[in-house]
């Protein structure tokens, strides 16, 4: 592997910070590796690791034991990959994409297809380093999205029965997955005409596009009616929950399809052809780069990126290429997501130290991320090998968030959420993750982590997921060193002196006996870990 293209060796704190943004959190080993490689070589290496359908494989292994799947199994495979996946960048970006291209097990029909939802997460991972156009089609054709936004089995209009095509996916694919509600400048700011934003699509565009998303249903060997409807005859393909939906001409609208300046003339009978034209139109829209780019920045780096930062990421998306020092990444084709991700992570706003002192910089770590950070920082092991941490929906008693269980297609929180009556609102800023943080959630999180830090996470007794605190226990007689290790692993050297003092003093409240120190050392480490996971310095990723 080539050495770093950078000129100076990375500091460990900078490496840790990068890993907090690019992965599910730093480990001591990965910090050292990244220091050795430099950002560019590390990213190049991660971008080259092939995608594997790890979630499907996990869930198939569960099914092979004769166990029927629950939502918890989807959580288990997620945690396993978050904690231990070698493709740590891909896993993190897939999780980010799962909060933009949302499907949810909270939907009672999607809930019948846990394997399909695992497959959907695999698909996001596979497409994460590809091209946006391909990602958009994989999302549009995935049967879980087809169920969730109800275009699976969607039929052409039938005027004799007052029936029109379902508009659900047509609306949300524009609002949430591609162009957003208002026209954007190249830097993501709203384009103003006479001082007012301009809506990027109209109700007529939705009607036109809704005709495109007709005649799609389960994949299989043929396109007979029974397969379209999902009947038991002909026998369903055993992988239909994962395979892309196929077109069924009989049910596809042949009316004119007019949207966003594109016209598919009346008489087009082929759903695949209509879909191609529609997705080409959406993917070519100038909004996509800044719309998607801003959200990726919010998911990985900061809630309120500067317009210039969004503009630079959108530029990488648009030209399909990004250059950092001597390293250039991307195919040169518009929509290249490798270039886009590199632009998000390597931008000066993401990397520069001054942003750490900007009171507006950073993002609240969502609860799932906090748990993942704990798992990785302390090299957890799963006794079963299966990472048996299930659903954690309840905010008052657990994390208040479970992967793939968003309340709606609008994710756990909106990218534009403004917490009311706060200094954040007064400053004109958004704080998406604060939409799920409130008086109950902060106590729920504290209590949950108090238990996890001490006893591990997940089901079984002892709990299935156990941390390895041996490196920390070795430092227990040196509170400053112990605090500094917490700071390196979890807050990448940004822990305030006030926080450090509190933690160090708390550690010192546990006296170390001259002999039989195990209990006291362990208690000290537990205090250090829980205090760090509860500190504002950690709760906000800067």
């Amino acid at each position, binding site marked *: 592997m080539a050495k770093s293209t950078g000129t100076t060796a990375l500091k460990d704190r900078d490496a840790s910070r990068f890993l907090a943004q690019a992965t599910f959190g730093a480990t001591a080993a990965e910090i050292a590796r990244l220091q050795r490689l430099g950002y560019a070589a590390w990213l190049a290496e991660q971008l080259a690791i092939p995608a594997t359908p790890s979630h499907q494989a996990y869930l198939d292994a569960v099914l092979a034991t004769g166990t029927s799947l629950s939502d918890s199994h989807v959580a288990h495979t997620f945690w396993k990959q978050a904690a231990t996946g070698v493709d740590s960048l891909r896993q993190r970006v897939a999780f980010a994409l799962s909060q933009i291209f949302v499907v949810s097990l909270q939907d009672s029909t999607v809930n019948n297809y846990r394997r399909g939802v695992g497959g959907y997460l695999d698909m996001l991972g596979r497409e994460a380093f590809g091209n946006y156009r391909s990602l958009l089609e994989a999302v549009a054709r995935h049967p879980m999205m087809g169920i969730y936004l109800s275009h699976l089995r969607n039929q052409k209009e039938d005027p004799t029965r007052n029936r029109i095509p379902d508009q659900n996916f047509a609306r949300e694919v524009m609002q949430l997955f591609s162009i957003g509600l208002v026209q954007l400048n190249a830097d993501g700011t709203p384009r103003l005409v006479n001082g007012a934003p301009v809506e990027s699509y109209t109700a007529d565009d939705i009607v036109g596009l809704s005709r495109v998303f007709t005649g799609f249903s389960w994949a299989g060997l043929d396109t007979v009616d029974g397969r379209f409807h999902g009947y038991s005859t002909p026998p369903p393909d055993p992988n239909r929950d994962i395979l892309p939906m196929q077109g069924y001409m009989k049910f596809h609208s042949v009316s004119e399809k007019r949207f966003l300046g594109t016209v598919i003339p009346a008489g087009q009978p082929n759903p695949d052809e209509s879909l191609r034209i529609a997705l080409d139109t959406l993917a070519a829209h100038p909004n996509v780069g800044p719309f998607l780019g801003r959200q990726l920045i919010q998911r990985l780096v900061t809630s309120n990126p500067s317009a210039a930062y969004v503009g630079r990421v959108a530029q990488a998306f648009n030209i399909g290429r990004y250059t950092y020092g001597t390293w250039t990444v991307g195919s040169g084709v518009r929509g290249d997501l490798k270039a886009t991700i590199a632009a998000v992570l390597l931008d000066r706003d993401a990397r520069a130290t001054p942003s750490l002192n900007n009171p507006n910089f950073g993002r609240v770590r969502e609860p799932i991320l906090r748990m993942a950070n704990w798992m990785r920082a302390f090299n957890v092991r799963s006794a079963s090998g299966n990472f048996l941490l299930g659903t954690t929906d309840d*905010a*008052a008693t657990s994390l208040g968030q479970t992967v793939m269980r968003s309340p709606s297609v609008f994710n756990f929180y909106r990218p534009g959420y403004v917490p009311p009556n706060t200094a954040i*609102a007064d400053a004109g800023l958004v704080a998406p993750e604060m939409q799920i943080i409130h008086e*109950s959630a902060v106590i729920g999180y*504290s209590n949950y982590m108090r238990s996890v830090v001490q006893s591990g996470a997940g089901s079984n007794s002892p709990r299935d997921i156990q941390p390895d605190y041996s490196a920390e226990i070795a430092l227990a007689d040196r509170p400053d060193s112990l605090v500094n290790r917490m700071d390196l692993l979890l807050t990448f050297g940004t822990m305030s002196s006030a926080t450090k003092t509190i933690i160090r003093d708390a550690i010192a409240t*546990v006296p170390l006996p001259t002999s039989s120190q195990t209990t006291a050392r362990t208690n000290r480490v537990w205090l250090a870990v*829980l205090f760090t996971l509860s500190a*504002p310095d950690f709760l906000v990723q800067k």
Partner: protein
Amino acid sequence: MTTRISRREFLKTAAAVSSTGIAAPFALNLAALGSAAAQTGGYRALVCLFLHGGNDHTNTVIPYDLASHSEYFNARSSIALTREELAPTSLGAVASQGGREFALHPSLVAMRRLYSEGNAAVVANVGPLIVPTTKLQYQSRSVPLPPKLFSHNDQQSAWQAHMASGEGVRQGWGGSLGDQLLGGNANTAFMCISAAGNAVWLSGRNVVQYQVSTSGALTMNAITGSLYGSSAATAAYRNLVTLASSNLFENEMGVINRRSIETNDLLRTALPPTTFFTTPVPSGNTLASQLNVVARMIAGRSALGLNRQVFLVSLGGFDHHDYLLTQQAQRLATVDTAVDAFWSWLGQMGMQSSVTLFTASDFGRTLTSNGDGSDHGWGSHHFVVGGGVAGNTIYGDFPQTAYGTTSDIGQGSLLPGTAVDQLAGSLGRWLGVPDSSMSTVLPNIGNYATRYLPLYG
């Protein structure tokens, strides 16, 4: 009036101070200041039951007389309910609607009983508006309209905001009502309460919404007793999680932690246990659990020093593009069971006339079927429940359930005939906000010749 204004000014200052973390809102004992006028007429509370996803109103309140039902049935085809299905929940002839007959969805058995007893009413075709709007005005866009109609998140905001604004809005009319009524409470932290997560509806200019757990009071274990063998560490932990910071996000985490710790200490002593009520909480019903903690807070009103409260509860799963007939029936049954239990809890406390519950949702839906569901619309029918409500009637104009009417703006979606502002104003006036202050709560209320519905007779 002078004292009123000065009190409001004081509140504004006090709330500003508290949001920076210098003083906690619960510490403001306004009654003790002497300038706060006591609310007259005893305790009152408003409860918003938000149905997330856009409830299909067409199958919630259904025309029932032969001619009207036939019109409905022909318009809806595959997703229509039959008269036989509706017979047990029929409401009979409704004088306010020219004697037309209506029925409720078959799942709404308790709601139908409350309606018949005069404790519930329907508000027909209500939705967000800026000004009264005709179909022609809508089509020509010649009047201002709520932004981003038919979009879930934006129309949730439009329903909840005090100015029918879209996503990102910072103030809701529930919170604005709270701003006006805050002075009646000795304890300002519990004015606007959500049992269902953060929602813009409850955010006022001064009022900070409070999230209560369905479990009631929560205890932060790490500040109680001993933490990993150290009793001294608990104070340090409390200090840590309430730290101030120059980073705005870090600082806000500290603010929330402090508010949470202090308010839960109060709730712990004030809330009765769930077993206080003889009617048990319906099992597996998350909405009932939310309404139960609302009832428990109402039971603790004296201990908490509360005279006025605004609550939010919610249930998701109403976006029925698919499986409308089966899934809406389940959802509405959950609502019906929960409201029925809530009514009995209020009854045990003798508080049925002191509480008004109303339903709200993202939007109504299309009349057209897309096979086995319906799409996003605008105006919708909703319920108002309470012992003080002049029930057993339908307020507003219930449109013809057909295409091409003066209310049909496409696919049978309804142009609202009654504005959310008018409903909100009616509820707010009952809660005690004077007409003279209503335009502060609802800046567009002056656009309506009839500001209030006669919901309370």
